[in-house]
């Protein structure tokens, strides 16, 4: 059984149904990416999986546990970390305090090795520990958001557009980091606008359109697919 299994998921907001019955699976140790145009329902899918919004129908199974009715803080305890769209940095808390928030639900208080790991991935954060999160640059905030999520020692990391608004060089760094996070043992479900790079590092990918999965395959397959190239990689 896959680490994460989503089946027949329906979710939305008020009168809007943004996700209309999707199935997807993420195996332990994979990087799986979810691509699709604006408003396709990618963020909504992640929110429904991590419990920020409650699914209307369908099942979400994580490590054998059903999550549909579970409160988000309980889901975090099971080993899932969600880096939300727009990063969700706590502006008034310092960089250090933001990192501590990431480990909020952990029972053990032995955070040193995790902090070290975050500093190794993002040396810039170490130089700015006392600085309020809100004063970091966009790229630094993205590093902080990922670093903070790693503080939870997640089995599964949900990343919502980690490359948004970053310079090309920084995008490279972030994607390299995602790969190394996976190599260190975590599983990654990645939502991206930058489909080209996402497909490059992903083991498998799903294409979402108007709340439904329209295509799926390995990263390589979708990277070669004509319709994907036209729609998401900007080719004619």
């Amino acid at each position: 059984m896959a680490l994460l299994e989503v089946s027949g998921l329906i979710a939305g907001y008020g009168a809007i149904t943004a996700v209309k019955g999707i199935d997807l699976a993420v195996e332990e140790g994979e990087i799986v990416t979810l691509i699709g145009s604006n408003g396709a329902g990618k963020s909504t899918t992640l929110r429904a999986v991590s419990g920020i919004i409650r699914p209307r129908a369908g099942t979400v199974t994580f490590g054998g546990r059903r999550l549909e009715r579970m409160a988000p803080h309980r889901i975090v305890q099971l080993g899932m970390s969600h880096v939300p769209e727009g990063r969700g940095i706590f502006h008034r808390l310092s960089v250090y305090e933001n990192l501590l928030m990431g480990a909020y639900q952990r029972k053990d208080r032995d955070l040193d090795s995790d902090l070290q790991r975050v500093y190794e991935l993002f040396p810039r954060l170490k130089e700015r520990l006392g600085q309020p999160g809100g004063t970091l640059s966009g790229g630094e905030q993205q590093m902080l958001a990922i670093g903070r999520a790693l503080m939870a020692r997640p089995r599964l990391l949900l990343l919502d557009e980690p490359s948004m608004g970053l310079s090309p060089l920084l995008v490279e760094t972030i994607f390299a980091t995602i790969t190394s996070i996976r190599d260190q043992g975590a599983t990654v479900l990645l939502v991206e606008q930058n489909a080209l790079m996402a497909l490059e590092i992903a083991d498998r990918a799903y294409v979402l359109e108007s709340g439904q999965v329209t295509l799926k395959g390995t990263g390589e397959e979708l990277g070669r697919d004509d319709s994907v190239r036209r729609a998401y990689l900007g080719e004619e």
Partner: protein
Amino acid sequence: MNPIRQLGDTTVGRLPAAARWPLFLALVAMLPFLLSGVWIQMLFFVGLFIVLGLGLNVVVGFAGLLDLGYVAFFAAGAYSLGIMTSPGSPFDLNMNFWLVLPLGVLIAASFGVLLGLPVLPLRGDYLAIVTLGFGEIIRLFLVNREDVTAGSQGLSAIARPGIGSFRIETFTHWFYFILVAAVIVGFIASRLRDSRIGRAWEAIREDEDVAAAMGVNKVKYKLMAFAIGASVGGLGGVLYASFIGFINPAAFSLQVSIDVIAVVIIGGMGSTPGVILGSLVLVGFPRILQFKATADFLSKFEWLRDGLNGIIAAADTVVPGSIGRLPAASEWGRELSDDTRFIIFGALLVAIMVLRPEGLVPSRRRQLEFESDDQPVPAGGAA
């Protein structure tokens, strides 16, 4: 840089942080030796609103939950003491003050949870409106349920505390009592703010979805904020009822909620020195204006009144009958603190919001929030 902030930095900034509070409290504790009765009474009320402000600050400043019904908890504490100790109470319990004190705090805390549960999913304006209604419901309960509260006739001869044969009676006794209460509440609040719980509140205040994604139990921490804020409101109510000795529903109007929230906002949300200053300005100053000493002092300005009235009379001859005359100079303080008080209050709030939205003495964090747009704070070590 803002001149007010600079002033603040140079006057207290030089003292080592650890020495500031003990020194300040020692100075405050000497006040009864320097001041007479009405001043000490005034300071009791300042202290009372510091206690209430610190309590509401936990809810509004720390957890970011705008509560406009704080009077409900103040009333719960006051009526707990009234009902359980007043000889005129419908229940005739005649209990001891020290027994009722924790009970009143507990009852108020449970009112906090009672309010907290239904408003859990609400945010911002919606929360403010529901809490406003809650305060009003409690007041109507006090008026209408005569079988429980003695209604508008009120409860009198409410118990006063004693320690052995010593009774807390004079203004000076009460001054020290409220001082001790404020110090305890202030200490607990500041410890909470810097704890794991405080960080959870801060996270909820900034973005409750992200807080939940970090593993913060929103329900638990929001209810905790409501319960802690409410119990402090209850404590204030118990102390107030005992000090005054008589309560009726009129004392528990919306105005109390507004006063406390104004104390918190004007001083600077989340900041203890801010609450102290806010209470001095909003609670202390209007009372000073009502002192007989103030009237005596102002009566020296009768010439100014005559002069101004002369000008008004002259203006009247141009546009006849439109403007009234100034009252006697000795009445100015009373006028200002009575009828005009709310106009000044409102104007002050607007002025603060426009000129200094972070409050007079902002909390460290809030200051960061307002400065962060244009003034990056230099990097430093871990906290």
